[in-house]
């Protein structure tokens, strides 16, 4: 169930990586770093929806997600002169966004996975675990199970899973965002995947 704009990498029947063509965004960031202020609009259009989706999934709080999105975009703007020519902007942006979440958590902002998510999330989640047609029949119930399972996962497994399987970052990019190795990200995402599969298997038919 991989969207057309994603290229999946499957190992032993498990979708371990997806990738997207972000080269136009990288070029926009390059132009913006070089001083082309007009490139910010293009950058915002490309980054903001993805960052918001990530932030909202992590916080389940629209106002907080908006606040963190603003922080992230302003920090990208503030650090634009340090952007390395030819570098990928997406992993960097996600790393800044994640740092914002961690800082908010440290400041005492309550960040929880809520029980009410919209159907878009459920569909994303189902697509990301490569669910079968039968499982899709009871999508909402299944989504509830998956959401609860994801919420119970350790933060590092949940974020690794989301970055790789939902945001389409490569394993290397996700490892850089999380400050760890590719092997560790693969393991974390796989454990999350296995937990979701087990939750689906335990679910009463």
């Amino acid at each position, binding site marked *: 169930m991989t969207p057309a704009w994603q290229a999946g990498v499957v190992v032993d029947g498990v979708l371990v990586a997806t990738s997207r063509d972000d080269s136009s965004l990288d070029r926009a960031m390059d132009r913006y*770093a*070089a*001083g082309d*202020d007009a490139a*910010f*609009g293009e950058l*915002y259009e490309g980054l*903001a*929806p993805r960052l*918001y*989706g990530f932030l*909202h999934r992590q916080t389940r709080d*629209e106002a907080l997600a*908006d606040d963190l*999105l*603003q*922080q*992230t*975009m*302003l*920090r990208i*703007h*503030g*650090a*634009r*002169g*340090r*952007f*390395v*020519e*030819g*570098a*990928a*902007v997406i*992993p*960097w942006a996600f*790393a*800044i966004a*994640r*740092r*914002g979440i961690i*800082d908010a958590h440290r400041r005492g902002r309550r960040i929880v996975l809520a029980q009410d998510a*919209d159907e*878009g*999330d459920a569909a*994303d989640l189902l697509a990301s675990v490569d669910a079968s047609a039968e499982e899709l029949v009871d999508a909402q119930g299944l989504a509830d199970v998956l959401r609860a399972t994801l919420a119970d996962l350790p933060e590092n497994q949940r974020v690794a899973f989301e970055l790789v399987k939902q945001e389409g970052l490569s394993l290397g990019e996700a*490892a*850089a*965002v*999380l*400050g*760890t*190795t590719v092997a*560790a990200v693969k393991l974390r995402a796989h454990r999350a995947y296995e937990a979701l599969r087990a939750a689906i298997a335990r679910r009463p038919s």
Partner: protein
Amino acid sequence: MTRDRENARRLQATIEDAIKIAPAPSRAQVSRTRSRLLAAGLVASVVAVGLTGGVHLNGRPTTLVYGTLLGWAAIAMAGAWLAIGRRGAMLGPPTRLLVACAAAMGPVLLAWYALLEHLLGAAGEAAVPVSMHVTCFAITLAYAAGPLAAVGATYRAIDPVHPRATGALLFAAIGALGGALIVLHCWVGELAHVALGHVLPLVGLAAAGALVGDRLFGTTSLPGRGRLG
């Protein structure tokens, strides 16, 4: 993911207004400032070496002095490169690698010195008073001060992932540079003195780098809220 479009549009307008009010320097401007400050930092170190009396060989083998200087400087550069060299990407190596390199830097410097001393058959001095350790400790820090200030000013907010580890390794590398320079000044070759007077400062700097890393190198130090936000 459904989202109120009006809210999203308003947020975008707020952000765009905020960046108009507070423009950020471009890559070329940052690069120019960085080059100037780093050059000034290195000049400050060289001036500090001059002010403390310049090179004192005092009968030491030239190969030992310059071998230590070059070896330690190379190790310092490698550490700094690992910490802030971005190699075509914006995010650095894994946290554990940075921490391991910061922790290993002191022992590696000592091992390099001991190896040279052994190969060159240079006899170490007899035990020296504690005051000499303290003096060299302070001078090593003074030699490192210029590059430290330059790096702290020019590499702000470069690491959203592990700024503390980056701070530890970068400060350790600059401490190693200070240690490399003090070998020109201090003729005491006793290994314990080299460890306490020349290498220990980098350990302290690594700890300081870990402490201030979040503020200096983390993106948290960048404004995250526009005046309108």
